[in-house]
């Protein structure tokens, strides 16, 4: 029987190996990194051009009435930077099982004498670090190319708030992994979930501008509170205190982790019983 310290050392060693493996995978496909760097910026540019076509500049008085700021460009750039964490988590942890299935390495990982949760934790940690890099690059690109300046020390709050958000995403990752085990074919569905989450969260537009049914859904998405906390802290909008939003995020973290774990455990048992772990 291992002591507590020895068990912790073993789990940390597994986490380190998972991070190393994920890093090697990204290095093996540099085009994927380039894609991750460019894609969020392309979506910012798309909205920027739409804004120019509708209001002829980067400010809007109507937007100020909904959001509390007329600077819609800064609003969407911060939203997009934070959404990178969500997107990476959904594609990363949510598709981890599917990826291993496709590569033919799932069975080896499944029979390894380590906790699945430690493996997922390693993936989540790597995704978190990778997202920090991508989000920073977005702020940098935007500051260089567009008429905004968002490379400021207070933007480090993004890292702190998303660290709280990460546990919800981790729970969401369990949930999607369970869905992959149950339904296979994840590519299209992940894409839909990713786009839907962006649609129902105040990433590119404020909560007040959403139609009522979408705004109600947004209230149950943790990203809404993370964005509110960050935008409020950097002075773009007036919102509830950072501590208030952080407390709400902790509640979401707990709920998503519990629900995600239950779905994942159920799906894994079902897949094992039916002999479907490695099939796709």
């Amino acid at each position, binding site marked *: 029987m291992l002591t507590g310290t020895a068990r912790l050392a073993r789990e940390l060693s597994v986490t380190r190996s998972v991070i190393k493996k994920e890093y090697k995978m990204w290095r093996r496909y540099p085009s994927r990194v380039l894609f991750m760097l460019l894609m969020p910026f392309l979506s910012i540019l*798309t909205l920027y051009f739409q804004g120019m076509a*509708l209001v002829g500049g980067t400010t809007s008085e109507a937007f100020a009435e909904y959001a509390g700021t007329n600077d*819609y460009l800064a609003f969407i750039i911060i939203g997009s930077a934070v959404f990178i964490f969500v997107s990476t988590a959904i594609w990363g942890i949510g598709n981890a099982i599917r990826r291993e299935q496709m590569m033919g390495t799932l069975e080896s990982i499944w029979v390894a004498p380590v906790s699945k949760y430690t493996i997922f934790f390693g993936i989540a940690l790597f995704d978190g670090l990778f997202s920090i890099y991508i989000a920073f690059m977005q702020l940098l690109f935007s500051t260089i190319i567009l008429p905004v300046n968002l490379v400021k020390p207070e933007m480090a709050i993004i890292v702190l708030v998303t660290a709280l958000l990460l546990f919800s995403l981790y729970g969401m990752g369990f949930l999607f992994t369970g869905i992959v085990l149950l339904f296979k*074919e994840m590519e*299209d569905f992940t894409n839909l979930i990713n786009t839907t989450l962006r649609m129902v969260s105040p990433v590119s537009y*404020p909560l007040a501008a959403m139609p009522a049914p979408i705004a109600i859904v947004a209230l149950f998405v943790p990203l809404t509170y993370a964005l509110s906390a960050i935008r409020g802290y950097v002075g773009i909008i007036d919102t509830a205190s950072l501590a208030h939003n952080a407390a709400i995020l902790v509640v979401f973290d707990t709920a998503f982790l519990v629900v995600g774990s239950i779905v994942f455990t159920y799906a894994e048992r079902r897949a094992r019983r039916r002999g479907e772990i490695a099939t796709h």
Partner: protein
Amino acid sequence: MQNEGHEGGERLQPIRQTTRVEAFTALLSIAKHELLISNFRYPLRIVSRFFGPLVWVAPFLIFGRALLGGADSQTLESLTGISHMPTFVIVGTIVTTISFTMLWLMSFAIRLESYRGTFESIYACPVSKFIFFMGKLMASSIWASFYIVGLLLLGVLVLNIQFVWTRFPEMILVIIMLFFAMFGFGLILAGMVLVYKESHTLLHFVDGLFSLIVPMAYPLAVLPEALQAVSRALPMTQAVIASRNLVIRGESLLVQSESIAILLAYIFIAIPLGYQFYMRMEGKAKKKGVLHKY
């Protein structure tokens, strides 16, 4: 062709050319497979197909509303002569959704068979690849017609879009031309996907780039000049421009000569070029032994 060296001198039957009826049957089977079997095998895909276009267009509409506080824009009117933002966006979305659906389906036509484990069976069938791709084209056109109906319902019932409906049949004609124009594009991408490993990444990037430069939610005039020039050369841009002129401004198809000329050029030049490119890439993939790999 005859097999001379067969034991006992018995000759194998020569491989005969498939008849037109057989080719058409194969085409229908491929379309049916793509539409029904491959989708119903994976129920999550059906969900994605139905809700995809809605979640694609909604952010542009909500963002537009947040900026305008309503539906009309004076800036948009001064740039295009059209002030109603939702009408402008819905037409752009109908055309681009169709284009992107087709690009995905066509370019993954072969690669998907590798994933599904049906690649070898399909490859061994005595049916030309052109028929195979036409079957995929037929499937994507049926999906696209669902999208058109869905987006139009959204526009009419929720967004109060202002169409000149008498010009709608002409817009459908433009969309049919776009289908064939995009066929060549799809063949080129299908060829690239055969030899390029990270094909999802490539296609997502192409998708993102086209979303930026095709005037879906904004007019060409707001893009930098270099991007405008690239965009004007694309069939989906011409289809968006022509469709807006038809159903929003009420112009006749006869005065959309630039758009029609570019679409026809794609139909008559890009399809043969795309097919040649695809066959060359297939030969390259065979030589490298990566045809069935992903």
